[in-house]
């Protein structure tokens, strides 16, 4: 059933992706023909004129991206706090509203709001531009081809008729994905951070209320919110913690497993609400899943016993010439485990959001940018029907993904704290369990 669902999701995703690419290609080639005069090196949207044509890819990617403010409705934003650090220039703090609104942008200490994210003028702008306040006329988008012949999106801020290159905040991709270390770091309370704080606050309120129930109804049957949440607690204990970690050690890790599950679940559910306080794509951002996966891996490896590390570093019971090979494989495994956790959650949530946004985009694609009302209506009918269906699947995924994340985290912890009574008795029941676990893992992949 799950496999079927996955295949279906994959097919839907591939289909939408192809459609998107096709759309983008059309758009792109159209642009090329109209801007033929500008040559091959640079494609420029001149001046501050706003391009009204609908580009689904950029709209979708804008919607799943993090932002430095919370959009309530188009044009009305909830400002969020900024904590921006530029090496050599110190910390800049304030509300995101200090960088102006959509109609009147401002540059403060070189920081400019570019499509929801804070950017900073590149160092080439000079120290004068990197401090004080300036009015920004507009943000320009250019597609440049670098020395290696690859296209790169760049943005410029037009200030006093002068165009200044904009840098995005530093990211930890090592430049592999078009990011890298730039001239500033963004530690702001972004839309995603705001949603995580909200989810954390809700979880604390919810679970302290449940815990109060246990104090109040001691020796009695559970009541109210306590009886609502108890099945979750017991299910996660009996289906994840105990079978994966074992009777002996599970109690120590049960709070961790529960926190992982509910934090991801609540972030997922907030992501499914299409308006404030939801709509933030928290668990569909690789930074979030990376942090969670690395924490999970550290928790597992820190509790790894001598038996676990012995198996990783110098596998017993195999010929000596195989041992170094297995060590390489096992050490790689230590990295691959959290990597798979990171990518699985990220890809599932992001894919779901992209599909839903693509279906909504059908209204504008069929409507041909507002030229065809009937096309828009047809797109609306199709889009609503499929979005409803996708939302149901997304709701399922919102529950299934934290469950998988929690069960795999528990299995990594279980493997790390597992104890063997007989070092040489490798046909013991533990091994059978371990084999079964490995067999069942592909189902969650």
């Amino acid at each position, binding site marked *: 059933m799950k496999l079927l669902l996955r295949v279906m999701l994959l097919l839907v995703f591939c289909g939408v992706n192809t459609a998107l*690419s096709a759309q*983008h*290609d059309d758009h*792109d080639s159209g642009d090329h023909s109209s801007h033929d005069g500008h040559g091959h090196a640079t494609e420029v949207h001149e001046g501050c004129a706003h391009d009204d044509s609908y580009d689904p890819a950029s709209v979708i*990617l804008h919607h*799943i*991206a*993090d932002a430095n403010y919370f959009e309530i409705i188009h044009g009305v934003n909830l400002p969020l706090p900024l904590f921006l650090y530029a090496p050599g220039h110190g910390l800049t703090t304030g509300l995101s509203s200090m960088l102006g609104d959509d109609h009147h942008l401002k540059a403060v200490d070189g920081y400019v709001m570019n499509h929801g*994210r804070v950017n900073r003028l590149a160092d080439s702008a000079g120290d004068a531009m990197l401090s004080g306040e300036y009015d920004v006329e507009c943000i320009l988008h250019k*597609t440049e081809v670098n020395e290696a012949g690859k*296209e*790169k*999106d760049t943005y410029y801020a037009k200030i006093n008729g002068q165009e200044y290159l904009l840098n*995005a*905040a*530093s*990211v*930890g*991709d090592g430049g592999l*994905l*078009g*990011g890298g270390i730039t001239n500033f770091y*963004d*530690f702001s309370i*972004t839309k*995603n*951070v705001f949603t*995580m704080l909200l989810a*954390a606050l809700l*979880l*604390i309120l919810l*679970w*302290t209320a*449940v*815990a109060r129930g*246990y*104090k109040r109804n*001691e*020796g009695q049957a559970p009541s109210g919110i306590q009886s609502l949440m108890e099945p979750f*607690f*017991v299910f996660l*204990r009996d289906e994840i913690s105990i079978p994966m970690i074992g009777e002996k050690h599970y*109690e120590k890790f*049960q*709070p*961790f497993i*529960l*926190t992982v599950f*509910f*934090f991801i679940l609540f972030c997922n559910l907030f992501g499914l609400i299409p308006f404030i306080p939801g709509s933030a794509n928290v668990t569909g*951002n*690789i*930074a*979030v899943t*990376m*942090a*969670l996966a690395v*924490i999970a891996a550290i928790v597992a490896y820190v509790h790894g016993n001598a038996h676990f590390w012995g198996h990783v570093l110098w596998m017993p019971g195999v010929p000596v010439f195989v041992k170094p090979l297995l060590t390489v494989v096992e050490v790689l495994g230590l990295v691959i485990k959290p990597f798979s956790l990171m990518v699985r959650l*990220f890809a599932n949530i*992001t894919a779901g959001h992209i599909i839903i946004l693509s279906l909504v985009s059908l209204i504008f694609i069929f409507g041909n940018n507002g030229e065809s009302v009937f096309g828009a209506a047809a797109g609306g009918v199709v889009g609503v029907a499929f979005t409803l269906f996708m939302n149901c699947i997304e709701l399922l995924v919102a529950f299934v993904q934290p469950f998988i994340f929690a069960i795999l985290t528990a299995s990594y912890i279980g493997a790390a704290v597992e104890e063997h009574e007989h070092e040489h008795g490798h046909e013991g029941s533990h091994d059978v369990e371990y084999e079964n676990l490995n067999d069942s893992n592909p189902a969650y992949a």
Partner: protein
Amino acid sequence: MSMLYLADFSVIKPDFGLIFWTVLIFLVLYFVLARLAFKPIQKALKKRDTEIQDSIDEAKRVQAQMAQLKDDNAKLLAEAREESTRIIAEAEAYAKKRKEEAVNEAKEAAQKVSADAQRDIANMRDSAMADLKKEVGTMALDIAEKVLQKDLKSDVNQTSLVNELVNNLN
């Protein structure tokens, strides 16, 4: 084209700020939830599980005890019924015996009384007979004496004499 797509695909680029805040929020959430909720709940659930198990064990024990008691009672009841039957049978036998004895006694007594009475009657008849014989003899002697003393010449005298004697006799 593909590069353009990737360049805009910002969610795949791990933002340092977001990593920092995720770690901070998650760790604080973990410590708060573990301390305020999950550990107390775990303890409470475990306690309740133990209590429920204890109650079930206790109920089973009591049930076994009850079954034992019931068996004992049934046995006692059977014994009591047997005893009562025995007692009643004994009592009935005794009563029958007593009745027969009483009847026999009564019969004997009655026989004795009737035998005594017959003997008394016989005795009295004998004694009455003896008295009568004696009286008749005396009377005969008296009559003979009177007859002898009177002048028995005339028939009239004889008749009157006989009448007088008869009257006297009465």
